[in-house]
């Protein structure tokens, strides 16, 4: 029930709305469910609202775990 797309914040207005970019498509998004959003952040967009920020450190860990699993099975 939760289509959420990771997109990069390109513009934040004082009203709390702004724009994000996903593969070159820009969408108007409401940031009021988050705090301290700035251009360059990655957020998850659901139904026109940003609901969370992407944690790069955690992302790296997950990706490295996946790579490890592939290597282990390859042996």
């Amino acid at each position, binding site marked *: *029930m*939760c*289509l*959420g797309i*990771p997109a990069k914040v390109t513009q934040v207005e004082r009203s709390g709305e702004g724009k994000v970019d996903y593969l070159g498509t820009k969408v108007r998004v*409401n940031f*009021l*469910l*988050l*705090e301290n959003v700035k251009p360059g952040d990655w957020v*998850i967009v*659901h*139904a*026109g*609202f940003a*609901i*969370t920020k*992407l*944690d*790069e450190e*955690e*992302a790296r*860990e*997950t*990706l490295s*775990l*996946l*790579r490890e*699993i*592939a290597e*282990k*099975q*390859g042996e």
Partner: protein
Amino acid sequence: MKELRDKKITHALLQEIEEKVRSESEPVRIMEVCGTHTMTVHRYGLKTLLKEAGVEMVSGPGCPVCITPNEIHEACLGLLTEKENIILASFGDMTRVPTRKGSLQTAIPAPRSMVKIVYSPAESLALARAHPDKEVVFFGAGFETTIPSIALTVKKAQAENLENYSVLSALWLIPPALRTILEAGETVVSGFLYPGHVSVIIGVKPYRFIADEFGVPGAVAGFEPNDILLGISAILDQVKKGKPGVYLEYGRVVNPEGNPVARAVMEEMLEPKDAFWRGLGRIPESGLKLRKRFAAYDAQAKHKLTIKEGSGDLPGCRCGEILRGLIAPPECPLYQKKCTPDSPFGPCMVSFEGACYVYYKFGRNEGAKSH
């Protein structure tokens, strides 16, 4: 982040899963709570691959189109067909759910009334601003992922003093539904795949009772194919060790504490209510509604709509059992006969993530081997 869809990694994860399943004596059944997980599992052909590895995926109640009962749809239909100058704003697949009076899509609106599909609750507000001569009713249905956005939209409507806007809300909470399913004791699963984006809002703690009280393992997983497989692998670890817990696979997006700003908006605008779920019946404190001081934005109050629990059920429809994971789509006597995506009988066939729709579209090819 291509590792999340990488074929080689998928293959390796499936091998890992297969090895873990081999050492289990009981058949492995995992319930995907979230409709988007159901959709992803099918759309990437994972359902068959997992079955080959020994894991059966069972779909659960996490599909707002499926669990919103017909009587709420009928209330929308009533407004659309009987009142003039109404704009009924709704998310896409809600408009296709068939009721005794047809669906929002096929019904003929009253003069100068219409249905408008929206992608965001914010669009419904924009409609109200753009059409001051019309009365906009937003059919706001969703789980915790969407609820804060709907709440924020009503808050904005109030701040702008909009007089032509209200929300017919159908807001549902996942943890109480899971408790009901577990307490009924009919559905037997080895573990739960928890909804990643609902968890963004509520965090991980609300699922703990499932591990602690009922001893069922679970993982909060993301929505890419390898997210799901990683989550399933983690569930199998819990099964093997006999240590049920709540594994957070989707840490890059889910904060274990959830989103406090979102929850604060929910708290400000909404209060709990007992809700009546299709298939699950009345579940205490499983829904939310607008607080009394926002009654002007509550369509049910504003337009004096009567919604009688259970009154809209279509006899013969077995969606309820599908939602509880008791039967699979082919076991419903109407499936593929009287109920097809072209002419659906029940919502599980309407929603793009409804178990029956997904099964019909992606899963009928059970015998195909992977390439």
